């Protein structure tokens, strides 16, 4: 009985040691991948606080970064419904209301259907505004880059 117990102890120690070792070696093994973010790829990522992303910048519209970029939204859009019954964006940005609301008119490209034919109403493939237009926020690039935009 005692002998048996004495045998179990070193076996357990050995097994635990092996498991720890394999774990460490796994963490260190990035498969030769380099990373731009400064931390190893396999390292747990530090969650961003997201503070800058919580509030839309209600300032003048931020310039576009490249040609044909959908312009950013210069206000918060929380709780603005875009449903089959009502599109809150179009409440101000539609052809009929943009002047009254001093808003930007929906672009003419939005009246073209998939075949390029111009429609009288906004094309349904452009109906979900926030698929392309997002509120501008104070978001710094995660990785530095040399992109300069249109020039």
């Amino acid at each position, binding site marked *: 009985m005692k002998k048996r117990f004495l045998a179990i102890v070193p076996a357990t120690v050995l097994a635990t040691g092996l498991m720890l070792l394999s774990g460490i070696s796994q963490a260190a093994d990035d498969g030769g991948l380099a990373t731009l973010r400064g931390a190893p790829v396999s390292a747990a990522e530090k969650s961003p606080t997201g503070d800058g992303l919580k509030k839309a910048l*209600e300032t003048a519209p931020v310039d576009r970064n490249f040609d044909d970029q959908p312009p950013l939204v210069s*206000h918060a859009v929380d*709780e603005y*419904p875009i*449903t*089959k*019954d*009502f*599109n809150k964006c*179009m*409440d101000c940005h*539609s*052809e*009929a*209301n943009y002047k009254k609301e001093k808003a930007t008119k929906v672009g003419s490209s939005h009246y073209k259907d998939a075949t390029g034919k111009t*429609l*009288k*109403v*906004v094309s*349904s493939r452009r*109906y979900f505004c926030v698929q392309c237009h997002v509120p501008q926020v104070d978001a710094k690039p995660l990785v530095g880059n040399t992109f300069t935009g249109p020039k």
Partner: protein
Amino acid sequence: MMDTDHPDNASTPAPAQKMKRRRRREKKRLVSVSVVAAFVLGILFLIIFNTVLDQTYTEEFCISCHEMKDNVYKEYQYSAHFTSRSGVRPTCKDCHLPEKGFSKILRKIEAANDVWHNLIGSIDTPEKFEEKRAVLAQREWQRMKTSDSQGCRSCHDPKSFDFSKQGYRSVQQHEDGLLSKGQTCIDCHKGIAHRLPRINQKINQADPPGISEEIFRPEVVKKEESSAK
């Protein structure tokens, strides 16, 4: 009173007069007892009436029928009036029931109509509800407009607006519409706690028309051009 034998005039009253006096005293007592009883009963009735009526103002009561629970209550759960940073939560009655006594009772009597429609099942499925949504919504918009958005104003007081904390668009709209043109909250703030019915925004041709923009965003004729600006 046509009593010629006033009890004070007679020093030694006759037995007949004595009886008369006693009867009168009994009558008097009966009157006072019944007045007190009526008073007490009245108070009791009011307490019971109010307690029962108060029960019908609670959210639990409102969503005890599935017409409310499965439709408008679910939508309300996605709104800022259900969860917010500071946790202030108005419930059904805060927006949909007048605060003051008489109009409150009147609204309650009107709402008895809902019991009937619950029985005949007018809006007992989401599909039926959707079909009636335009009618129901417009009725409520009209009620809020008539009361100058009293429900909103019990919490949101324009006198306490801090314009420096509002976005510039809000400031513009509030100064222009609410303060100068005499618009009321519901004129612009529709569908903030429940889903909107279909609005005809003239942006899609294939679909059924829905409520016109004239009703959805009413133009208000300027009361007077405000010179102080």
